[in-house]
């Protein structure tokens, strides 16, 4: 990791997470560069989601440091912030492996909830908003426009007023990404966004993620099993197995790395050593 400091957005050092005797993540060090898509891959139970939960504050890491550096020079140590502050101030947004939308609310409402903090300030913490303060009306209008933009981007413009729970699975995945993007993240963490998608939906997802990388300031951290997605769009791949980093590098190298192949295909220990 010799890249200049300005290029790195997420710097994770010696991250360990233990649950009692179980070591889920063991001394993991990696960095994600600004404007890139960094993928974390590994077999089931390798500790990928645990890393995500540490980064987004849902777990308090046992050891280690997670530092995020915004483009404007602000820095936050994520292991010291409560989860909602990580989202609100350090601007880390995430999606979930098992989709967590507000199922009884419409797609549009889901995207407005994502803009909660900005709207809360605009509504004078409700005190002004309750009297229809013009500043708040403008802010809400802007929020709806932004939601409309993202609904358009993920191809759900026609279903803005449908409850999120009634959308098909693939659409729910895309809506969750749109919701995360509505919170204007500096780092977008996607936990298996292609899980359960058919090939056509997966390629649409690739396009969407590529577009996010190209057009927004958000860098992407991605957990994925779907190798098609990983190899096609990621710039940098970190491979975990049993909580440890076993390889790191550009996708081309990772594909041919014997250790990675062994981890995925389950080759004998001696063979790896050879």
């Amino acid at each position, binding site marked *: 990791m010799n890249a200049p400091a300005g290029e790195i957005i997420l710097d994770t050092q010696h991250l360990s997470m233990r649950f009692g005797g179980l070591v889920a993540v063991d001394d993991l060090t990696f960095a994600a560069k600004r404007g890139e898509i960094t993928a974390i891959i590994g077999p089931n139970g390798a500790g990928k989601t645990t890393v995500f939960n540490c980064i987004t504050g849902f777990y308090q890491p046992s050891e280690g440091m997670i530092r995020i550096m915004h483009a404007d020079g602000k820095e936050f140590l994520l292991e010291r912030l409560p989860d*909602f502050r990580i989202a609100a101030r350090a601007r880390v947004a995430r999606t979930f492996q098992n989709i967590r939308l*507000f199922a009884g*609310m419409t797609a549009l*409402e889901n995207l407005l909830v*994502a803009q909660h903090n900005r709207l809360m300030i605009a509504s004078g913490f409700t005190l002004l*908003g309750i009297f229809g303060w013009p500043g708040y009306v403008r802010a809400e209008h802007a929020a709806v426009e932004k939601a409309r933009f993202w609904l358009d981007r993920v191809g759900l413009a026609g279903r803005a007023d449908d409850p999120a729970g009634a959308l098909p699975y693939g659409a729910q995945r895309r809506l969750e990404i749109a919701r995360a993007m509505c919170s204007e993240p500096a780092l977008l963490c996607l936990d298996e966004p292609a899980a359960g998608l058919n090939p056509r939906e997966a390629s649409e997802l690739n396009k969407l993620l590529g577009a996010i990388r190209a057009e927004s300031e958000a860098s992407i951290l991605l957990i994925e099993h779907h190798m098609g997605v990983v190899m096609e769009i990621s710039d940098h791949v970190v491979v975990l197995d049993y909580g440890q980093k076993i390889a790191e590098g550009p996708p081309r190298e990772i594909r041919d790395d014997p250790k990675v192949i062994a981890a995925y295909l389950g080759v004998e220990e001696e063979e790896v050593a050879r």
Partner: protein
Amino acid sequence: MAVPNEPATRARPAKLDLAGALKDAALAAFVAFGLFSLMLGLRTDTGASGRLQVSPRPGLLATVVAAVFAGRLMVALIARSRIAADFTRSVQTITPQFEKLGRFVAPALLALALLAPVLFYSNRYILDLGILVLTYIMLGWGLNIVVGLAGLLDLGYVAFYAVGAYAYALLAQNFGLSFWICLPLAGILAAFWGVMLGFPVLRLRGDYLAIVTLAFGEIIRIVIINWQSFTNGPNGISGIPRPSFFGAPFNDSEAGFAALFGLEFNPVHRIIFLFYLILALALLTNFVTLRLRRLPIGRAWEALREDEIACRSLGINTTNTKLTAFAMGAMFGGFAGSFFATRQGFISPESFVFMESALVLAIVVLGGMGSQLGVAVAALVMIGGFEFFRQFEQFRMLVFGIAMVSIMVWRPRGLIATRTPSVFLQKKKIIPADIIEEARQ
């Protein structure tokens, strides 16, 4: 009763499972025997010498058990027939018609409420009942913020009602403050206690939160009972100042309301004033709730009800959001409490027992969590129904229980279980109950 079961209910009428039904009925009869053997089967009388005598009543017991057996058998047979399945479905899918009806029911109810004092000018009983119903509507709407919108099960809501009532009573008696100054103060105090109680308990969720709020409701009541020097303990506070019409008291004096407006003095003036006062307070609660639903805080409450973890991942401070819901609900409870105090002129801890919390919660749950109209209708039916059945005192709880069970069987999400979106792009679509229900499982 979810959709997936539908084919099963349809297929079942084909074969009549008599043996199963008989077994079911026998089990019910056995349970009934166990229950009633002591309650009905034995009767204690005072004998001739003044001693208690136990007289067995096997005939009555046998009749009741036989009735339960026959009833259960009937239910088992009918419930599997097509008629019952169709009926259940029609009750469950009545919602769209309900929504259409709702558009007319709400204004009609409002008009009725506004005109009630004119229509029933000479009928004090109806007006008093109206005031009572409106008080519970207001309490229901207040609790609806906490339970219906934010999804926090609060079993101690009556605590804030008590805080509001005692705040008004003590402020008015000790400092001679008028109702209109005390009202906001009582609301603020109740909201303050809402935050005080909420802060330690809001880390808990679901059932645990319910238990702790239940305990806090009781703590407040027990403090009121035992803090003799401050609250006058179980004797309560009497002689609480009656409300005045912005300074003009409702009596036959020179400066009174009647003299001021050149009317003949009539004690019903005060009742009418109280009626409009609680109507205004209830409508204020409704207006604020509807308004808050469209603001970020209201959407955050509903999002919190749907998925707390997702809320935190979006940067919403869930503790503060829950606290505001708690405080807002408590504030309206406090308003209702101070109204209660000024109407009764006397308050004691007996008015603030757990039963009141349960009643208000039942109103919210039966009405449909989150639905303003549903809560109003449920309050009208429950409180009005209680009054209606006053002559049949003994059967009141029976009817109440039957009503509860039927609602739970046929409309498990309450009378109005749909949700109206707070904002829309093209078309406002009512969100059906089953989607909301599925989301919460």
